[in-house]
Each structure stands twice: as structure tokens, then as C-alpha cells.
């Protein structure tokens, strides 16, 4: 295909155009022994341990934003879902639903980013599917990725947080709200120019470093939609402990803060795509913090709070001015204020 071409309905028909698209684009970039066999399903080797399996769909608007694009996001998102469960991500599947008329060069850029991010994260894209729908039946391109990871049985508790108890520390690997505000700023209708970059990144490398150095990790979660506040609130709900965080310890980039102020958003509720919240044994917290701070993805890491024997079932925050307030789950989308 030439650079000016667009995706046509025929590219999803299963005929010659589909065949060409798969060979010229997907095989070219995703090239690996499993995919190249061109079987109906990929046959994968699995070591001992448990299989961790996850799926996620990506519909971001705009497709391209500072710090990433929908393709990179689709890999990072699924890799991170596996990694925060304590698993080592291995294999990824990818499904594309493309709106007729999408410029080929956009699709190529997305696929190229996916291949690049998969290589960086050490995962292999082993199977995929492409459908093309009529104009206005989807918004440019939607991507679904599923992922398989291998989980050592000793990390089973990390996804559920079974062993959490008062005194445990809550750690984050850096600033909150970057992704959500970068995407919002990239939308043309806001007419805001800034340098906010999405934090979109695969965290499995950093998480593996931590898990191989310490047994103190009790829980991990990536604070994507709904932000840090929603994760902490969900974690506390129905539990015999509470969570107390300290606003002064929560890193927020200057521009994210300014943009949030402008729109009346609370950065604690804004989406992240390269952050992990770890609840750890207090004795391990210092080591975890150090490992994070020595990694490019955790330079601004901070202990933002702790699990408390009080406030059962609730997440609280000590505000920057010394007051207390509750952190609740996000209801609907955060809407800009009007006056």
C-alpha cells in the first residue's frame, strides 16, 4: 500500500486485500515464530506455575497524543494488568476494529508502536484479527488486546490483597494524572496547548525487579480510569481497615496541576497508564521505594500513605492544608466546572 491510501471495507473482507494487509503490515511488524505459522490459533509453551489471563479494549480519542498512541496504550494496558497481578506477561493477542477510511499511515504508525512496545516489554503478539466497519460505525479504530502471563503461586495474593493489615505502606511510582490530562489537552476542542505527556509505559520490568528483591508486596493495582482515589477507595470498601493518604506526599506534575485547576478536576481521579500502587509490608517499603527511584519509571516514587486500623472501610486523605477528607470512587466522568 502507498502512504496516501486508506483502509477500505475490503481490507476486512477476508479476500485479497485482507491478505495483503495482514502480510504487508501486521506480519511485517509483529514478526515472530508463533504468528508466522499462520495457524488458526497460536500454540504456546507454558512453564510451570499458574496462568494469568486478562483482556482490555482501547477506544481513546484522539488516537495520537503526547507520550503515546492507541497502539502503545493497548500493549501497555494489558501488560500492566498482568504485571500488577504479580504475573510475568508473555503473550498478547490483538483485535482491530477499523472504521473505513482510516489513513493507512495512521494504522501503520499504530502497529509500529505496538511492535516497539511489545519488544520493550518482552511480550510476543501471537495472534490477531482485523475487521473493517462502515464509516461512522466506530470511531477511527478500536483495539482489543488480551494477554497471558505466568504467575508464581507465591504471588497469588497480590491481585486480591488478602494479607493487607494496618501499618502497611502505600507506595506509588510517580506523578498522578498525567495520562488523562495529556489526552484531554490533545483534544482540539479545548484549544489548550501544553507539554503534558502521557505516562503510558509498560511496568512489568520495574515490577519484576521489585518482586525478585522482596517478599513484602501485598497488593498491586494500576490506577487507570478513576485514578488513584478510586483504587484506594475500592481497596478499603468492606474491609476491617481504612486507608489514610497524605496529599502533600502525592506527586503531581506542575502542568497537570494547573490544567486540573483550570477545569476543576481533581488529579486524584484522573487516569494514569504508567503507574502502579503498591501496598507493602512496612519493613519492605524502603527497599521498594529505592528500587523504584533508581528506575526511569519510578524516579518520583513516593510513600503516599498507609493502611490504618481506624476509618474501617474508607479511604481518607489528609489534605495539603491539614484537613481531612474522604476519597470516594469516581461517579461518571469528571466534568469541567462552569463558574
Amino acid at each position, binding site marked *: 500500500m502507498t502512504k496516501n491510501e486508506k483502509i477500505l471495507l475490503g481490507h476486512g473482507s477476508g479476500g485479497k486485500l485482507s491478505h495483503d494487509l495482514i502480510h504487508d503490515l501486521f506480519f511485517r511488524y509483529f514478526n515472530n515464530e508463533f504468528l508466522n505459522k499462520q495457524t488458526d490459533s497460536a500454540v504456546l509453551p507454558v512453564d510451570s506455575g499458574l496462568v494469568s489471563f486478562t483482556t482490555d479494549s482501547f477506544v481513546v480519542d484522539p488516537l495520537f497524543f503526547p507520550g503515546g498512541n492507541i497502539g502503545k496504550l493497548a500493549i501497555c494496558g494489558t501488560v500492566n494488568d498482568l504485571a500488577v497481578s504479580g504475573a510475568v506477561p508473555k503473550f498478547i493477542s490483538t483485535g482491530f476494529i477499523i472504521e473505513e477510511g482510516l489513513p493507512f499511515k495512521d494504522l501503520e504508525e499504530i502497529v509500529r508502536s505496538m511492535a516497539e512496545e511489545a519488544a520493550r516489554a518482552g511480550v510476543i503478539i501471537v495472534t490477531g484479527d482485523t475487521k473493517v466497519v462502515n464509516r461512522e460505525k466506530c470511531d477511527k479504530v478500536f483495539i482489543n488486546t488480551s494477554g497471558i502471563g505466568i504467575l508464581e503461586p507465591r504471588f497469588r495474593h497480590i491481585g486480591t490483597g488478602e494479607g493487607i493489615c494496618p501499618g502497611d505502606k502505600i507506595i506509588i511510582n510517580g506523578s498522578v494524572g498525567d495520562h488523562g490530562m495529556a489526552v484531554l489537552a490533545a483534544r482540539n476542542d479545548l484549544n489548550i496547548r501544553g507539554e503534558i505527556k502521557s505516562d503510558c509505559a509498560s511496568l512489568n520490568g520495574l515490577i519484576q525487579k521489585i518482586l525478585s528483591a522482596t517478599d513484602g508486596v501485598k497488593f498491586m493495582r494500576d490506577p487507570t480510569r478513576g485514578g488513584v482515589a478510586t483504587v484506594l477507595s475500592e481497596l478499603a470498601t468492606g474491609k476491617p481497615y481504612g486507608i489514610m493518604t497524605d496529599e502533600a506526599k502525592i506527586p503531581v506534575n506542575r502542568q497537570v496541576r*494547573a490544567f486540573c485547576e483550570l477545569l476543576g478536576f481533581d488529579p486524584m481521579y484522573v487516569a494514569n497508564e504508567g503507574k502502579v500502587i503498591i501496598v507493602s509490608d512496612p519493613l519492605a517499603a524502603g527497599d521498594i521505594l529505592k528500587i523504584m527511584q533508581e528506575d526511569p519509571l519510578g524516579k518520583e516514587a513516593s510513600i503516599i500513605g498507609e493502611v490504618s486500623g481506624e476509618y474501617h472501610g474508607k479511604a481518607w486523605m489528609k*489534605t495539603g*492544608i*491539614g*484537613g481531612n*477528607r474522604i476519597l470516594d470512587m469516581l*461517579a461518571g466522568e469528571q466534568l469541567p466546572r*462552569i*463558574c
Partner: protein
Amino acid sequence: MKYIDEYRDKKVVLALAEEIRRKSTRPLAFMEVCGGHTMSVQRFGIPSLLPSHIRLLSGPGCPVCVSSRKFIDQAIAYSRLKDVIIATYGDLIRVPGSTSSLDQEKANGANIRVVFSIMDALELAKRSPEKQVIFLGIGFETTAPASATAVLSAYREGIHNFFLYSSHKIMPPAMAALVDEGVRIDGYIAPGHVSTITGTSIYKDISEKFRLGCVISGFEPVDLMESILMLVNQMEEGNPRVEIQYKRAVKPEGNIKAREILDEVFELRDDWWRGLGILPRSGYGIRPYYSAHDSEKMIEVDVEPTREDKGCICGEILKGLKNPKECKLFGTACTPQNPVGACMVSNEGACQAYYRYNR
């Protein structure tokens, strides 16, 4: 961040809290009129810093909350018309009407666009000459000048397909009506942004007639704590009056240019407020001279009969007579995900602020 960090300085806030505790000898109730204040009070946890005998009540200053259900019903009816685009601030789309909401209508295919400024709606009208673009104008003296400016621009540039559906209101009649109705407060934390336009004179009558403190406050924690201290001092000295805390933004004379534009486009009319009913000369209608851009005059529509919800005490909450936790729907039948009353919908509504920060 300049103009923010210095007003969120913990040391200053705690020193003000100490001063309030030292000066205040008797129970006092202050009402923050503006939804922006309500949000800040809850977000920063201000009540946890005050002595227990100082109560803060949330007033009728959230534009979405005080708008009538009929306003929403009429907006919904407009949205069902062919070739109409509704442009609105985001808060409004989830407010329940009698049988539907703009959100639901959008899902059913109505052309409803969330804009961040009325100027975006004006641009939309220019770009879509084959459609009629109706902007839902809500808010007080703060947002009304922007609406007036848009109407003037549409008139001057001949943008015939741009309409304003005005539910704009002015603050003082509601502040007076509350006290008239017997709501017991000692002073108002008066709205900062409204006052940048109006100046201080609008509060003079209220303060003198009802012997109420009235401190025009900014929105940051230091602003709010300082305003509360000023109100406490006024009460302790027995000298309630109008004062400006938010001096970096508010001048006693206000913004004369903005008021001229308001006066050019709008005239006062009786208007309906949730919880307060009809208040004389409390709303902004569009003057006949600009009726070509007044949706109420130009676009005919059938509106379903208005049905109010039983059990929702938004009205009493807006008047500060009850607090959200006293509503039997609060947190159960009425949540931000599934709001019954308008106070739960808006970011600035008392119920949502309580739900999010203080449940």
C-alpha cells in the same frame, strides 16, 4: 503554582484556624453561597479545622441545582427537534428532567454537544449554518456576561442560527429570600466571582436589613479560613457588614464594562428557583431587541408537564435548612451515578460534595 500555592499554605491555614478558635466564643452558622465554595470547603476538609460550634451551610449557588426542572424539560424538548444542536456545559447533561435527561436523549440520537465556553457554541453555529444551535445559559452574574457577549456577537455578525436559552439568574434576591424565609444564619461567605462583576453594593441591603455579616471570599483554603475569621470578628464585635477578603480579584465597584453588556442584552424578570419558588426580578431574560437570538421567542416547542420527585429534599438543602445526610434518598436512591436531585448531579452541588468528600 503562583496564585495557588500561597493560598494553600498549611502554616497560614493552621494559624488562621487557631485565631478562629481563639476569637470565637459562641455558636455561629455561616452560609457559603457559591457552589465553588462548597466544593473547596469539602475538598480541603475545612470543617475538620473549625471549632465544632461553627457550622458551614451550603447555599443556593450551584447554577445546575437551582435551575428548574421545567428548564431541563424544555431543553430536552428542543433536543428532540429536527436540525437542532444543543450546546451545553457538561454539568447539565445528567440532570434528570421529568421523564428523561439530556444524557438519555443523546444516547437516543439527539445532537447534544458539551462545550467549555459559549464561544465554542457560537463557532459551532458558524460552522453548521443548516442547523439551529441552542446554548443552554445557566449561571449567575459570572457566566451571564459571556452569554450576553455571545448574543451581541451573533447579532452583530448576523449569525441567525445561534440562540440562547437563558436560565441565568442573579444572586441577591435568593440571598434575601433565604433569610426572609427564616433560615437562621449569622453571615454569608459571599461569592467571589459574582462579586468581581457586581462589586459590593449588591450585598449592602441584605447586610443592613438582616444584620448579617457578608464577606466576599476567594476559593482557596487560606481565603475561606480568612473569610470565616473576618465573619467571626464581625459577630464578636457586634458589627456585621460587607467586607472583601478576595481583594486580589474583587473591586468595590465591580466590573462596569461587564455590567453594561449585561444591561444591554438582558432584562430582569421573575424566575423560578429550586427550593425557593418564584423570586421577583431574579432572572435574566433576553431583551426584545435581541429576540432573534432568544430560543424562547424564536423556537416553538411542546414541553411535557413537569413532574417533581417525591422525597427529594434538594429544596431544603439549597436553603440550608437541612444537610444532605438528612435526606432519606442520600447515598441510597440518590447517588452521583444515579442522581435524583440536581444537588447530586453537579460537581458543585451540596449533595455531591458531601457524597464525595464527607460521607
